[in-house]
């Protein structure tokens, strides 16, 4: 019989005390135990990026992360980025620019974009955005819409930052 281990996790601002099998990935914990199915399981091998979430502010592949190893971590998933009915600027930009077709990769694309913008490395250079998001595969190939969405979201967030700072 498998022994479960106690961990605590903050997910989208909510604190959880959990019992986990040591083999359970953060992805499976989110989807199966916390019923946060917005984070998708694509390849389950760290190759497609559909499972991207932010852990302590950094984007990672939750399919390669053992939940037990992330005891005490703060996790942000796609369910936690909007403010009530108001979409996160990255979500709104993906809609405005058709940054998806089937939508399966979209939660991962959006979380990866939020991580990319927070890293502050991509700037307004489409080439660097493509490089920065290369860990997120879109089999519908909505890439041109995704790059446009990232560019707009970045400008939008910079404007908001300036207003907040002023």
């Amino acid at each position, binding site marked *: 019989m498998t022994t479960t281990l106690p961990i605590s996790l903050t997910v989208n601002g909510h604190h959880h005390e959990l019992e986990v099998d*040591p083999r359970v990935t953060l992805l499976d914990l989110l989807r199966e135990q916390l019923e946060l199915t917005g984070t998708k399981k694509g390849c*389950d091998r760290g190759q497609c990026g559909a499972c991207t979430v932010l852990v302590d502010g950094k984007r990672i592949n939750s399919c390669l992360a*053992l939940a037990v190893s992330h005891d005490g971590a703060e996790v942000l998933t796609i369910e936690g980025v909007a403010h009530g009915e108001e979409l996160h600027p990255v979500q709104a930009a993906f809609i405005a620019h058709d940054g998806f077709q089937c939508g399966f990769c979209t939660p991962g694309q959006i979380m990866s974009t939020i991580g990319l913008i927070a890293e502050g490395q991509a700037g307004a250079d489409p080439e660097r955005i493509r490089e920065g998001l290369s860990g997120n595969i879109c089999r519908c190939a909505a890439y041109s819409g995704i790059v446009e969405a990232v560019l707009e979201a970045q400008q939008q967030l910079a404007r908001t930052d300036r207003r907040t700072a002023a």
Partner: protein
Amino acid sequence: MRDFAYLRATSTEAARQAAALPGAMLLAGGTTLIDLAKCGVAEPETLVDITHLEGLDGIAVDERGAMIGALARMGHVADHADIKGRFPAVSEAVWQAASAQIRNMATIGGNLMQRTRCPYFRDPSNFSACNKRQPGSGCSAIGGVTRGHAVLGTSEACIAMYPGDLATALVAFDATVHLGERQLLVDDFFLLPGATPDKEHAIEPGEMITAVEIPASAAARRSTYLKVRDRQSYEFAAASAAVGLELEPDGRTIRDLRVALGGVATKPWRARAVEDALKGKVLEPDAVRAASLLAVEGAVDHGANHYKIELAPRVVARAILTLGEAA
């Protein structure tokens, strides 16, 4: 994934002791280990989690060199201003490796323990023969699809390619790996497959990588990592070169040259024959192209990977000439 016991190490010493037990493996970023556990290649009985250890993730750079803690994340190393400034090839190798998500997870120590991407090695349910997984069972790659396999350092037992980028830059600049008290050149840390391809690293039970040290040099400061691949990002190298160059005060004679190859060999591959042929010579395209052919001396192809023998010298030559132009 097979069931395993989980143990969170509270000190480096405790981690070493726990990892010395049969069936125990160290867990850091997990990007190789969890992947291979899902493939059925890694079957640990105990995982010793070292990610909560403190003081092992620092990056310190001064005029003597860089000391990078084993738990420093790849993303942190790639973005570090002093690594970019004094060891550009190291930063370039790391940011061209994997994806941003994986670089945020994977550690430098774990990166050195990265296993091959040989598809036969990674697929035990379909290919039972693999000398790396099961010594003596044979090699499914020889006679199979070999486009991504090594042309240098191979043996009759194994032709699996070493896929990493960072270690290629590390061997070019004589970096050492710290295993607690013991230190080894990174070049000596990686073993040729020979008759024992299952043994990839000169690390013993009870040892743990604690840091990587890169000595400063003029060649490291003027260096680059050129990675040629099937797609522009998030792909392993078809062939890559870490190159460092130091010129004499005349601005054209080569005083020091470092060349290492990735994507073509069974381990990070220092190409000393290229270095020796060009040191003391004037940097000019024909001489560089001729000397770069020495990078693949002794190369053996297995059909579909023949292109690497032509590609690797061109990558080396382009990297050297690019550095030469960027005076």
